[in-house]
């Protein structure tokens, strides 16, 4: 359970952080700090168990029918990473509290920060590969939000977009690789995959798996050739860089490589792909880091270089190299996060991070300088600091590499060269910022920051020193547990001593230190230019932009070729394809009529259908130029449909159809007001081309209609199939407690469906409302309708808002309609309450009440109604949804699954026999939501007139 809690706490904290006020810096920091600290404490407390048992597991059933569980797994390696993520998170929260300015909207920062922490813990602790990929994506998304935190800066937006594009594409590749891997291994559980190592390596798909997973890992860890996003991500706030871009997110890539090391490593392909990418990043980024002008730029390239070192170690196919890699992961996190914090402090106190402007800060900020110097020394690999130890192990591995000769000599040379670079850029950074003459033109006068801001950095530096001096005591056992978790029984023996005697690695270390100092003294110290020699023309960002532009324009071009923006063309294509597809199927299989004899034709019914059919045809005939007549015809066709439902004993359908008809008519008429008039200058239906087009449309429409009719006939003349219908009919009363099968299905058997549908209805209503708020009708529709202009003349149209009844022609209807309102409420409640046992229900009831409300608007006008009757459709929607959800959740109190109906049947003293059921509550929710959604949408359109009236008043146009 503790495992779930570790992941759950940050997410919970994030939810809380999102709802705090924007200036609550202290509350946010306390909340985030508490969540991070609690997660750290739980992680620490789990160590004895991990050390004793090896692996802790937690399986929470999620979709057991599909074999999907939420699977958490913590072994020594995952523990080390979890400690890194939680512990570093706690320190960064403290730091961020003092770093963020009071003007920044901190809730957004801390809530995304905690989401990221939770997602990262999810990656680390997942015992299921697909689940891990899901959390992996979540880290990409939350890091996007964090990099773009200051979204008013174009640079931040660009950097965030680049990071998301690169890591997101990598995540997609990783997903593919994981799917293949799980397929080969016969399961996605991490233990299954780890046990299937021999099959995976022998499988013909192995190269594809390796390439895809390497793509995912290398993009995430910013390895060559995908390294370019990391320097651009430096536009993030510094706490984000310290956390994501040194300690955690970029480590996810190497975490994955180490996690799958037993399964994928050990082949030549692994050596070349992983080792090659690592070596290129190590040397190239080290070189580039020497010429950066931005403090964070230096640190970003140095991070790429150090991650390259780790990747190279993982790629070397040796157990000892893996140990060194894990060790360096921990070491790099400590000194690099501390350096990022120092860069942030310098930026915070002086207002700049430009190495050309900064100088001599050690006088003003001695503590910061001391901490940064120690951390930079650890980064350079100075003895008695943690960086030295893991770098020494790395040098030793390059020397004892079991490969052909040229690689055996080349690799140590390259490693030493990278060491030289590392020393040189560390020296340059420290020397430029903290030494030399005091800087003159800084934006702020530098001074020491508050102690609390130094504390996280100081703790990290202390860790660097402690690990560097007494490694076996401080980190020895944890490192052994971690590497033992990956390597199992094969874990090699190694010693974490500071002193191994005079040997080649030590020599290499001294060469690197001496060479680095020499390089710095000879070249870099006096260099003022801001460009990178030799590699000037290679620019990852430019390549990225070019590729992205090509993709976008290509997609647009393809879209232009393959699709049409015209609705008519799209409709034609859809129906033509449907018709063609059906005809293709009919040709080989035929469409035989069934054996059932048709019922004798009732002449009255035939006449009814004649009326309905004629109306339907008339709609199509008149829709183009006589919209109003078409609405009337559509009303006739709708009535015929409702009567058909009644005739064939489907009263529920008839009720619904009738109410929907009425509301639809009003809706269309409301919209009709804003459609432009027919422009007589545009030619009517004459000429050859329009006639040809219309004939084609008639053919397609007629074909589709006749085809559907034939299909319906073929189905209806066959004997009824014993599907699920008899079940519903038989079980409606015993299980659902209702006599009306239709309603029992809607609110009980398929209640979850209905819940989803009403949610969608609510969303649609809100969307319509939101869209219409910003909608402005065409200018030619803005004018007052001719009728009103003629009848009202120049008099102010509405001056009788206080009158009991609207004046003029609407007075008599208003009397009628006001009397109708309570009656309609009664009728609607009647249909709602009896719905479970007889035709009716929440949907019909809701529509009836909504119709009555709309009628008030219709006769009174918006002002008149809204000054008397305040309908708050948004509340109705919200309360309706809440009621429906409450009816569903209520089942939990009876120990039943969501939306199980709970009924109570008994006799009350005065009232008599009474049947109460939770489905009534559910139906009441549907009722309220339908009332709210319908009135919201219709009134939103009606308010357009209000707005155009204001517009006319504002422009002084009386027409």
């Amino acid at each position, binding site marked *: 359970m503790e495992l779930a809690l570790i992941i759950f706490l940050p997410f919970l904290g994030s939810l809380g952080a999102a709802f705090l006020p924007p200036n609550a810096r202290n509350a946010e920091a306390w909340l985030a700090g508490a969540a991070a600290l609690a997660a750290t404490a739980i992680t620490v407390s789990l160590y004895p168990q991990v050390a004793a048992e090896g692996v802790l597991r937690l399986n929470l059933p999620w979709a057991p029918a599909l074999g999907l569980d939420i699977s958490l797994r913590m072994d020594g390696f995952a523990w080390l990473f979890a400690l890194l993520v939680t512990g570093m998170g706690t320190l960064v929260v403290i730091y961020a509290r003092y770093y963020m300015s009071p003007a920044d909207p901190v809730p957004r920062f801390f809530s995304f920060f905690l989401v990221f922490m939770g997602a990262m813990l999810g990656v680390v602790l997942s015992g299921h590969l697909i689940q891990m990929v899901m959390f992996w994506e979540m880290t990409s998304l939350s890091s996007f939000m964090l990099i773009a935190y200051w979204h008013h800066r174009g640079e931040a937006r660009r950097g965030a977009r680049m990071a998301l594009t690169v890591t997101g594409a990598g995540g997609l590749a990783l997903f593919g690789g994981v799917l293949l891997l799980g397929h080969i291994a016969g399961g996605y559980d991490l233990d299954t995959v780890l046990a299937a190592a021999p099959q995976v390596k022998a499988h013909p798909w192995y190269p594809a798996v390796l390439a895809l997973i390497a793509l995912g890992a290398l993009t995430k860890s910013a390895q060559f050739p995908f390294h370019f996003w990391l320097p651009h991500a430096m536009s993030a706030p510094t706490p984000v860089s310290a956390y994501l871009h040194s300690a955690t997110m970029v480590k996810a890539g190497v975490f994955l490589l180490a996690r799958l090391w037993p399964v994928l490593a050990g082949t030549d392909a692994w050596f070349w792909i992983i080792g090659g990418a690592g070596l290129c990043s190590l040397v190239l980024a080290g070189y580039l880091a020497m010429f950066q002008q931005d403090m964070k730029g230096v640190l970003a390239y140095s991070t790429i270089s150090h991650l390259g070192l780790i990747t190279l170690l993982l790629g070397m196919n040796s157990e000892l190299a893996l140990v060194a890699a894990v060790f360096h992961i921990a070491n790099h996190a400590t000194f690099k996060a501390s350096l990022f914090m120092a860069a942030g402090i310098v930026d915070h106190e002086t207002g700049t991070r430009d190495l050309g402007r900064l100088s001599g800060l050690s006088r003003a900020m001695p503590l910061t300088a001391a901490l940064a110097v120690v951390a930079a020394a650890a980064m350079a690999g100075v003895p008695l600091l943690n960086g030295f130890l893991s770098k020494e192990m790395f040098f030793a591995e390059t020397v004892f590499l079991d490969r052909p000769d040229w690689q055996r000599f080349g690799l140590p040379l390259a490693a030493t060269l990278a060491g030289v670079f590392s020393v040189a850029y560390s020296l340059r950074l420290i020397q430029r910022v903290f030494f030399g003459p005091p800087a003159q033109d800084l934006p702020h006068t530098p001074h020491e920051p508050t102690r609390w801001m130094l504390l996280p950095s100081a703790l990290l530096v202390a860790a660097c020193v402690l690990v560097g001096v007494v490694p076996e005591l401080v980190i020895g056992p944890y490192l052994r547990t971690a590497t033992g978790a990956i390597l199992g029984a094969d874990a090699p023996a190694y010693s974490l001593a500071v002193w191994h005697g005079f040997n080649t690695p030590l020599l290499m270390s001294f060469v690197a230190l001496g060479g680095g100092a020499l390089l710095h003294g000879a070249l870099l110290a006096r260099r003022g230019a801001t460009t990178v020699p030799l590699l000037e023309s290679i620019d990852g960002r430019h390549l990225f932009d070019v590729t992205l532009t090509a993709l976008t324009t290509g997609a647009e071009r393809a879209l232009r070729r393959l699709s049409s923006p015209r609705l008519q063309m799209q409709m034609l294509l859809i129906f033509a394809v449907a018709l063609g597809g059906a005809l293709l199927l009919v040709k080989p299989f035929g469409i035989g009529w069934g054996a059932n004899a048709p019922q004798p034709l009732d002449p*009255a019914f035939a006449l009814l259908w004649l009326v309905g059919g004629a109306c339907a045809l008339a709609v199509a005939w008149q829709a183009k130029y006589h919209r109003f007549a078409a609405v*009337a015809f559509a009303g006739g066709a709708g009535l015929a449909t409702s009567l058909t439902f009644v005739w064939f004993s489907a009263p529920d359908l008839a009720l619904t159809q009738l109410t929907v008809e009425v509301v639809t008519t009003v809706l269309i008429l409301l919209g009709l007001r804003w459609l432009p008039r027919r422009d007589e200058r545009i030619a009517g239906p004459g000429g050859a081309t329009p006639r040809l087009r219309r004939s084609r449309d008639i053919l397609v429409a007629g074909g589709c209609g006749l085809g559907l009719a034939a299909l319906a006939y073929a189905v209806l003349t066959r004997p009824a199939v014993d599907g699920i219908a008899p079940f519903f009919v038989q079980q409606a009363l015993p299980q659902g407690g209702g006599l009306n099968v239709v309603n029992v299905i809607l609110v009980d058997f398929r209640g979850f469906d209905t819940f989803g549908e009403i949610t969608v209805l609510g969303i649609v209503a809100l969307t319509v409302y939101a869209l219409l708020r910003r909608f402005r009708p065409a200018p030619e529709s803005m004018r007052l309708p001719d009728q009103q202009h003629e009848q009202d003349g120049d008099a102010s149209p509405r001056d009788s808002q206080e009158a009991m009844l609207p004046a003029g022609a609407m007075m008599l209807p208003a009397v009628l309609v006001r009397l109708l309102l309570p009656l309609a409420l009664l009728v609607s409640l009647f*249909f709602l309450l009896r719905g479970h046992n007889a035709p009716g229900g929440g949907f019909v009831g809701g529509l*009836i009440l909504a119709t009555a409300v709309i009628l008030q608007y219709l*006769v009174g*006008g918006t002002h008149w109604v809204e000054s008397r009757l305040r309908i708050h459709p948004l509340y109705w929607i919200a309360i309706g949804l809440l009621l429906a959800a409450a009816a569903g959740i209520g089942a939990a109190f009876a120990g039943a699954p969501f939306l199980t109906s709970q009924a109570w049947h008994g006799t009350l003293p005065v009232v008599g026999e009474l049947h109460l059921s939770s489905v009534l509550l559910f139906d009441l929710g549907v009722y309220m939501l339908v009332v709210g959604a319908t009135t919201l949408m219709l009134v939103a359109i009606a308010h357009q007139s209000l707005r155009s*009236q204001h517009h006319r008043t504002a422009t002084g146009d009386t027409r």
Partner: protein
Amino acid sequence: MNALLPLAVNFALACFALSMLCALIRLLRGPAAQDRILALDTLYINGMLTILMLGIGLGSALYFDIALLIALFGFVGSTAMAKFLLRGEVIEP
């Protein structure tokens, strides 16, 4: 009596269907928009009566509720159309 009722119901149904046909002719031919609205209203009245007849014929009270609904709200569509013709928009400010 029992033999007479179905006959009467069927006769009435046929009559209503015929009158709906008449209303349809007015609906289609117009000529004025007002004619169409009246025709639609007549259609609704006849529809309501048809439903009542069906209810009597089948001996079920359920149909009465549907007829009630038409009686209460069948006029809304016609009213909205009439309002549209009279004032140029359905819901005025």
